[in-house]
């Protein structure tokens, strides 16, 4: 099967920032992403879990972007602007994708 080199970026970010992040991605020309729910986690700002949440204040989501390697820097720059002042993490993995025309 024909595969193509790409990058997989995974951003864990606070739920109230979700729309700001996806807006920033779209503005940077990144129109492909998938958002996963997050049940809980732990980091420098302590441990939290979705049970014990009223409202969406401190919940988080994971945003996954598959992107051509040459566009990675644009994506990171625009994502970083949103993530910068907030809690959350960004990781990047090398990957292969099918159907390169989609990215």
């Amino acid at each position, binding site marked *: 099967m024909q595969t193509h080199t790409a990058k997989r970026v995974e951003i864990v970010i*606070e739920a109230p920032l979700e729309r700001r992040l996806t807006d920033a991605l779209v503005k940077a020309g990144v129109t492909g992403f998938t958002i996963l729910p997050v049940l809980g986690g732990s980091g420098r*700002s*302590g441990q939290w879990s979705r049970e*014990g*949440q009223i*409202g969406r*204040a*401190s919940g988080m989501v994971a945003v996954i972007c598959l992107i051509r390697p040459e566009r990675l820097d644009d994506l990171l720059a625009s994502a970083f602007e949103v993530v910068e*002042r907030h809690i959350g993490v960004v990781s990047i993995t090398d990957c292969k994708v099918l159907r390169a025309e989609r990215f």
Partner: protein
Amino acid sequence: MNDILSLAADNLLSPIILSFVLGLAAALGRSDLMVPEAAAKAMSIYLLFAIGFKGGASVADHGLDAKLALAILAGVILSFGLPFIAFAMLRVMTGLSRTDAAAVAAHYGSISIVTFVTATSVLGGRGIEAEGYMVAVAAAMEAPAILSALWIMARGGSGKMEPGLLREILLNGSIVLLVGSFFIGGLTGAEGLAKIESFIVSPFQGVLCLFLLDMGLVAGRGLRGARSAGLGIGAIGFGVAMPVVGSLAGLALGMLIGLSTGGVALMMVLSASASYIAVPAAMRVALPEANPSVYLTLSLGVTFPFNLVVGIPLYVAVAQMMAGG
């Protein structure tokens, strides 16, 4: 005084408060009892819709009171003003940073709708009437406090107003639902109420029990987190003193504009209560450097239980003494 105590005892022995205490105990005992997030959200939608609708239907029933505009204005003033008092108290009583103090202050200017709902339930149980439009006042008090906090920070040079944040705050789900159902209740009146009464009136107290069970669980987890948040005795003291201060401000304005006894009590409750839904979400966007466990612990872990168990019967009793009834 005796009266207040017997009222408080009465209040303590209601299924509503005991459900809250059960949740609190379960969380503190680290039971795995939990209410699914979707169910908690569904219940809060139900409560907002029911309380808004009933408020609107009551306004339709009693005619539009000339004091409505005054009451809303008073609410907005309280919501704008209380954060400044709270901020000053926090700077004196605690070692919180300027940012954390501003974020906490925003919560105390805004309101907790569940505290409000519980208070209407208590009033109903005692046969004390209140103005139906108090739910509109509640809605009006949700947002202004956030602006005050941002203004406090802006004076210090930080805390920018993100584009779109204001619209987000004003159109936040609970405001829209509360105001919207208030209008629906107002438009359809007694006839509309009759159609859905057995949904929004009869089971209301029961749903409130389960909702407060969940709130107890959440508050209990918050209290357990209080240690890790490193909240000192000063902060805890603020969480108890501020609602009392707020309630007095509410009392003053409520009496000034001549609300009924029930209305005064609700104005006190609104002023005394602290937000834990709308404001935390706004703070994560506008003041991300503020520590969420500080403001959530204070609002949910200290002030909310205080108001529920001690505050409401106290405010109702004071309102009865001052405004008669």
